[in-house]
């Protein structure tokens, strides 16, 4: 609640009368409301705010220890006790570390990207660098983080709703362009991490999560009511396997955002779950049978009454289907394209009306104000999204044909951003080579 009022630019306090969750459930006892009515009356008449203005530069903190290790421990403890950590050790965001990270941005450190919901604190380039420093990041990661944060703050992302919701949405950032390989971002085996040879995704995603929590106020149980909060240590940051795209297949960045091949870009959307799909056949299928059975199996995973995704019914995404380069090559050899795969998945993931009704789906749809979403009530079977183009289909995951991955959407919109790098970017990459060893694709110990 305090996040909500500061997010509106109000002082960080409110006239609050809090009740146990039970009162807000179907068939509940409303006696607590009667018993505490005078507190509500006081809130409307007698309550007065007491606040002080808090805007200004990022403050500095100080700890002392018997030695450096002791000081590091105390700094970590201080960050955690102020609810600014995630439970894992952080790199302390000293001025020198933050200045080093800031080399990765062509923008001034005071440049304001926006206000991060729900708490609504200002996000500057420096604030992002502080989070990236804490997350163990490096300066060459900063351009991707800044682009992701800018997309996150786009009102069409509806993060003001997604940050506090109990549905537990997880930001996913898909990176296209040469920067992915340059900064050691994974597009292959285990691309959702962790990967010591390609550590960029973990740091960038953790930094985004720390911003969501520390700046946006998304603390479990009050700032975010995410019931389970899966994948929230690092969110999901990965690259599309552009080299694995079959001839004639466009990248996600080109298809969804119109960015040309070779453009450094990110695409940000939200999901609320993951499902591994054993896609390949079990015995003696022909290539055609293997492909078709796999497509039906993937569509079956998508066919769910995911009412969290209704806000993106017209223009968002019902989810992200990730297939490996091996599967993409195989499908392409049989004449499939990304477009025809999407069309098939959309058609065969429709939900028969009686099953949608049995699950209470129509009542949720009726709550929506979008006319396209409301009109879908007349469709039987009911498509899980308004159009096949909304299904995000990405190639990533390495040289293996067995599995696909379905990231179920919680996605009002899919936001694309080009990534701006500083003039010294090549120097930063050279430094990374010195610090981390040779590139991830050739470095074998």
């Amino acid at each position, binding site marked *: 609640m305090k996040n909500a009022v500061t997010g509106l630019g109000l002082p960080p306090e409110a006239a609050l009368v809090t009740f146990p969750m039970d009162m807000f459930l179907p068939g509940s006892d409303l006696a607590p409301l009667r018993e505490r009515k005078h507190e509500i009356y006081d809130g409307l008449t007698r309550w007065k705010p007491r606040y002080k203005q808090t805007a200004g530069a*990022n403050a500095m903190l100080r700890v002392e*220890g018997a030695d450096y290790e002791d000081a590091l421990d105390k700094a970590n403890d201080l960050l955690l006790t102020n609810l600014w950590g995630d439970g894992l050790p952080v790199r302390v965001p000293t001025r020198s570390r933050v200045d080093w990270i800031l080399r990765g941005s062509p923008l001034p450190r005071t440049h304001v990207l926006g206000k991060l919901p729900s708490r609504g604190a200002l996000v500057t380039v420096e604030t992002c660098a502080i989070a990236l420093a804490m997350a163990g990041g490096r300066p060459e990661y900063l351009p991707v983080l800044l682009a992701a944060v800018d997309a996150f703050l786009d009102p069409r992302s509806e993060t003001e709703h997604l940050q506090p919701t109990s549905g537990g949405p997880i930001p996913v950032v898909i990176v296209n362009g040469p920067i992915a390989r340059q900064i050691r971002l994974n597009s292959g085996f285990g691309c959702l991490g962790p990967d010591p040879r390609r550590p960029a995704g973990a740091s960038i995603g953790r930094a985004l999560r720390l911003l969501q929590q520390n700046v946006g106020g998304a603390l479990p149980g009050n700032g975010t009511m995410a019931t389970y909060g899966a994948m929230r240590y690092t969110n999901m940051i990965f690259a599309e396997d552009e080299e694995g795209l079959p001839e004639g297949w466009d990248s996600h960045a080109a298809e969804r955002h119109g960015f040309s091949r070779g453009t450094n870009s990110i695409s940000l959307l939200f999901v609320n779950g993951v499902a591994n799909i054993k896609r390949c056949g079990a015995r003696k299928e022909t290539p055609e049978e293997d492909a078709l059975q796999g497509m039906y199996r993937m569509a079956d995973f998508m066919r769910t009454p995911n009412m969290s995704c209704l806000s993106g019914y017209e223009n968002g995404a019902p989810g992200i289907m990730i297939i490996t380069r091996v599967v993409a090559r195989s499908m392409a050899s049989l004449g499939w394209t990304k477009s025809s795969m999407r069309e098939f998945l959309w058609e065969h993931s429709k939900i028969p009306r009686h099953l949608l009704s049995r699950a209470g789906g129509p009542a949720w749809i009726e709550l929506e104000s979008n006319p396209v979403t409301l009109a879908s009530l007349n469709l039987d079977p009911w498509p899980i999204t308004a159009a096949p183009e909304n299904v995000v289909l990405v190639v990533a995951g390495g040289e293996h044909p067995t599995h696909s991955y379905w990231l179920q959407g919680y996605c009002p919109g899919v936001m694309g951003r080009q990534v701006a790098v500083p003039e010294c970017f090549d120097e930063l990459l050279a430094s990374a080579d010195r610090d981390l060893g040779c590139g991830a694709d050739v470095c074998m110990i």
Partner: protein
Amino acid sequence: MVSLEFFDPSGTVEVTQRHAPRLSSLEGKRIALLSSEQWQSFRTLPLLKSLLEADFPGVDVLPVDAFPQGQTVIGSESTSSLIKSSGVDAVIIGNAA
């Protein structure tokens, strides 16, 4: 002793508007209810209406359906304009909206 100085990572909050002034009393006031239609607001808001009407002489609490209802519409500019033009003294919004 070794000292470490580092940034507070929580950013800064700008206060750009103040809370609405409180009413001197609820007696004789017109009060609007704005419902998200969620979290039992279809029960809690009417109950609040009846409690207010029992406790404060002359209070006029508009029915919950006097304005658009639903989470996606109560925050809209059009609803806000309707509320302002209605001339009510206060608005109670709920639940979890």
